[in-house]
């Protein structure tokens, strides 16, 4: 997605008020943006705390401010700067974290970002965008850029099956239809289930949905998804994020407050904080029970 991100931001760079800050990351990806922005492309160095507060200072003067790092460095160390300086003042700083979830899997636990959106959505005025496919990036950058509030953009890599016709971006998209359980996935992980689901007979095939914008109070569930959830044999939420503060909690609160009931709720989530062996994103997904085979076992139980 980095190329698509760069292309989308280059398309925005004609704005004279745009400023892009990076924490010394983006080599072999962001050079075209650096070239077109000139002095408005600022490598703030290996100093994420300062970078976030500088971003707040820039945004308070009505500049269009984007901040880039890899996802784990984007929110954890500078959390207080994001909270005090950006979120408390409701400044429209756009935080971009590349490699959300297990994106930097075998790089080790310091490079996993599996509590990122839960942490950030605890802050006032914050919203989160999680593009599913590479083709989403133009729309996501346009929507992110239009926000007058702080935004976190969690980037991964698009993983559609070969030859898949990616549907036009929307905050909610249904990717497969059937008479089976409802499966709601946060972000690119959804792409890894499409091919298997499409091969399943109609009577068992899940209704696969992907959500790309959080929290739910800003991005309500489609009415047909609510209806499917009430009628289906079960509902499974899958996210490359820890259990606490994740999307599933928000969804169940949303349902509980509205009297929406579902049968056989299941939650599959990231567990790597408890692992002592590491591997690729695929390895860690499988170890967390997020791979398609593990999902099928879970769905078989409902």
């Amino acid at each position, binding site marked *: 997605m980095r190329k698509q991100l760069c292309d989308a931001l280059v398309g925005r760079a004609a704005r004279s008020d745009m400023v892009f800050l990076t924490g010394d990351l983006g080599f072999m990806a962001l050079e075209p943006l650096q070239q077109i922005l000139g002095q408005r492309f600022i490598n703030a*160095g290996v*100093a994420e705390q*300062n970078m976030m507060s500088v971003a*707040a200072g*820039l945004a308070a003067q009505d500049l269009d401010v984007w901040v880039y790092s890899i996802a784990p460095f984007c929110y954890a160390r500078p959390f*207080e700067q994001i909270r005090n*300086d950006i979120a408390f003042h409701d400044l429209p700083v756009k935080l971009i974290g590349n490699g959300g979830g297990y994106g930097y899997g075998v790089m080790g636990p310091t490079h996993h970002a599996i509590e990122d959106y839960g942490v950030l959505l605890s802050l006032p005025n914050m919203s989160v965008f999680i593009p599913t496919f590479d083709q989403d990036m133009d729309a996501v950058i346009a929507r992110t850029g239009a926000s007058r509030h702080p935004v976190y953009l969690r980037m991964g890599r698009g993983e559609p099956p070969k030859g898949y016709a990616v549907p036009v971006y929307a905050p909610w998209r249904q990717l497969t239809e059937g008479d089976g359980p409802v499966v709601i996935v946060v972000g690119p992980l959804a792409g890894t289930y499409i091919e298997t689901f499409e091969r399943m007979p109609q009577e068992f095939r899940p209704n696969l949905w992907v959500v790309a914008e959080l929290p739910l109070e800003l991005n309500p569930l489609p009415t047909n998804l609510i209806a499917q959830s009430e009628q289906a044999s079960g509902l499974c939420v899958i996210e490359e994020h820890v259990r606490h503060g994740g999307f599933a909690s928000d969804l169940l609160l949303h349902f509980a407050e509205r009297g929406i009931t579902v049968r056989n709720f299941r939650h599959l989530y990231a567990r790597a904080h408890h692992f002592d062996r590491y591997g690729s994103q695929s390895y860690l997904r499988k170890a967390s029970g997020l791979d398609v085979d593990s999902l099928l076992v879970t769905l078989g139980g409902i």
Partner: protein
Amino acid sequence: MHFDSGVGHIGGNLSALDVLLIVFHEYLGFEDKFILSKGHAAGALYTTLWSIGRISDADLRLFHRDNTLLAGHPPAKGIADIPFATGSLGHGFSLAAGTALAFRLKHSSARVICLTSDGEWQEGSTWEALIFAIHQRLSNLTVFIDHNNLQGFGSTSDVASMSPLWDRLRGFDVELLVIDGHDPDAIRDSLAHDTQQLRVIVLRTIKGRGVSFMENRMEWHYLPLSEDQFQRAVAEIDAS
């Protein structure tokens, strides 16, 4: 107002008050920004803003009470002359650097003043800000350091071996001045000329300045005044 509200942090307010009064009364223009990084000196900032008519008597009386605009540290909203909520140390210099950079990118001649504490230089983020501001050659930014030698639970030299701070700063590419932070003329002179570098002005100050039993006493970082202490302090200040 600290006595009325039963709140402390008086020592670091008194060490900062002289520079605040000069900066707001004599230096800042309409477009300029001031950022109080040592947010625990909020009382001195509120009093200074009151003295130039930017905070009302009624608001000042509500300092540190329920339903106040004026919390114990600078608020995020409600006071136009306070651009950022501060109080967690190590934020203000970076916020000031971002503001100064914004002014430069917008081709504005506006200036930024930031006041840090000396203990605050134990925060890594303050050094990140120094490196950034120097690299960006933010000559429209002046950083004052209220060097009163005392912090919350010891002297700055007892807690971290960096004192005097100006010796640590000499290796950086800044315009470094060390002045008496209670000498109005010295403060005026330090701001009187333009510079091509980031300007860092170390204010040699006295914690609890102006009240003999508070001066250079660490406990006045936190303690509120008793009735007797309040009366003695007022009598001393009136007599001077």
